């Protein structure tokens, strides 16, 4: 559009807006400056009560202590001064800086003392992407560069926590899921809920405060911080710096559990462990008690096996002793050893009777085995062991014809001479 064309178009628009007629209304009149600015202001406020302007931020200043924002909005052709009051500025989630392309919604008015035309901004959005998305990226970058996400700061979770803290809302499914999963998996814990607001004004401060309170109390071994699914806006508290800092400062390991599988929040990055959902946090914070029962069974079996083996070795030693010294040692010595084995077997039996209910089958097998180990028991049943000049006779090759063989029975020894041998068919 060429310049004359544009002027015609603008004049046409002014006529449509009624400006042309009004401008003519004051033709040739003498106006005071104050009157003029007031009239201009009225015209502008009437015509530009709500506009959205696209432009680039420059000369950005946050005035302290008032907290009002001052900046210039410009493009290649022009610029306009803009102001944003503190109450509106507090709702801007991302950091504004010079050069940023934005959409500003507001009204146009005149600052009478200087006769300046100003855009009074009510809200600002980054052009091209969502404000929350930009705020998220900005904070993520900032905290990352400060090292808040670094692996070396991540604390390991306790294997078996005794006390678990939960920072979440009492409403919603998240808290119920966490309670029921922990109650099912590993109820040998104390679960302490710290109810907080998880969305809306003040939610981030409440969450951060609860984390700090837990840290001060020191009454839990691990913390779950989170909430169920929702929109980006709903989850926003977990993208706030105050929450991120509280998690980072917390000396108790923190599990972040926000929203669904696909939702990533700043809390997730700072926390020691990220759980995809509140339920997932409950699953990973405690082991399954049935797995631990299995471990207990295995350990009991290992202990029993070890003691069995020990008694077996003892039996071998006694066997060796009886075979070597049976002639020289008084019989009472052997009896004492045998008695010891009986005694141990009996004590073992007593405990095995009380062995975990679930292992009763295994128990009877072990008992049978241990009873079989006692030589006295075997001898009582009519079995004997034979001792020759070369030691225990376990084969017909261990002894020669006409040699002495001592047959040990439960109540004494028979002295015999080998008169013949018959191998098995």
């Amino acid at each position, binding site marked *: 559009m060429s310049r004359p064309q544009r002027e015609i178009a603008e004049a046409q628009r002014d006529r449509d807006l009624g400006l042309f007629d009004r401008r003519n209304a004051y033709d040739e009149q003498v106006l005071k400056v104050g009157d003029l600015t007031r009239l201009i202001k009225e015209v502008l406020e009437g015509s530009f009560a709500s506009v959205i302007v696209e432009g680039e931020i420059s000369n950005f200043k946050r005035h302290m202590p008032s907290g009002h924002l001052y900046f210039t909005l410009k493009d290649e052709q022009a610029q306009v001064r803009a102001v944003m009051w503190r109450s509106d500025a507090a709702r801007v989630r991302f950091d504004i800086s010079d050069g940023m392309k934005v959409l500003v919604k507001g009204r146009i008015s005149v600052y009478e003392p200087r006769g300046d035309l100003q855009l009074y901004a009510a809200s600002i959005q980054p052009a091209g992407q969502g404000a929350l998305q930009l705020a998220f990226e900005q904070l993520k970058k900032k905290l990352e560069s400060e090292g808040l996400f670094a692996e070396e700061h991540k604390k390991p979770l*306790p294997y078996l926590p005794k006390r678990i803290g939960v920072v979440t809302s009492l409403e919603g499914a998240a808290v119920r899921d966490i309670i029921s999963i922990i109650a099912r998996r590993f109820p040998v814990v*104390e679960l302490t*809920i710290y*109810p907080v607001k998880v969305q809306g004004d003040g939610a981030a401060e409440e969450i951060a405060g609860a984390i700090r309170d837990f840290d001060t*109390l020191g009454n839990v071994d691990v913390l779950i911080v989170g909430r169920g699914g929702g929109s980006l806006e709903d989850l926003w508290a977990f993208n706030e710096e105050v929450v991120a800092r509280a998690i980072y400062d917390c000396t108790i390991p923190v599990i972040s559990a926000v929203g669904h599988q696909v939702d990533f929040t700043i809390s997730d990055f700072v926390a020691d462990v990220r759980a995809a959902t509140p339920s997932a946090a409950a699953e990973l914070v405690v082991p399954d008690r049935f797995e631990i*029962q299995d471990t207990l069974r295995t350990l009991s079996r290992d202990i029993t096996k*070890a003691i069995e083996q*020990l008694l077996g070795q003892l039996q071998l030693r006694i066997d060796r002793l009886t075979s070597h010294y049976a002639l020289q040692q008084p019989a009472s010595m052997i009896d004492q050893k045998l008695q010891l084995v009986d005694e*141990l077997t009996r004590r073992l039996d007593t405990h095995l009777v009380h*062995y975990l209910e679930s292992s009763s089958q295994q128990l009877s097998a072990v008992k049978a085995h241990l009873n079989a180990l006692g030589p006295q028991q075997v001898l009582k049943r009519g079995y004997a062991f034979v001792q020759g000049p070369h030691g225990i006779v376990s084969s017909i090759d261990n002894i020669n014809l006409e040699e002495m063989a001592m047959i040990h029975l439960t109540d004494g020894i028979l002295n015999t001479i080998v008169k013949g041998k018959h191998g098995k068919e």
Partner: protein
Amino acid sequence: MGKSNSKAVMEKTASEPDFEKSLKRLEDIVETLEGGNSSLDDSIRLYEEGMALAKSCSIRLSDAKLKLKKIQKSSGGDLEETDIEE
């Protein structure tokens, strides 16, 4: 939040026997017994202790009921812990 209050909260939770310690002790016993270097008397004692631990842990696991608590800030700003029902 008062200091005395936080102390009271800590004392309340300190008495519970430690499940993880019991489990660790049990594992140590197995290791010692399997090492086979203890005297007979010691071994029997360890065996007895181990079986008792396994039993008590197992009973605790099957009988345990989740202890549920809630923290609230009083109007004075103190933190109050109360038991709640599931």
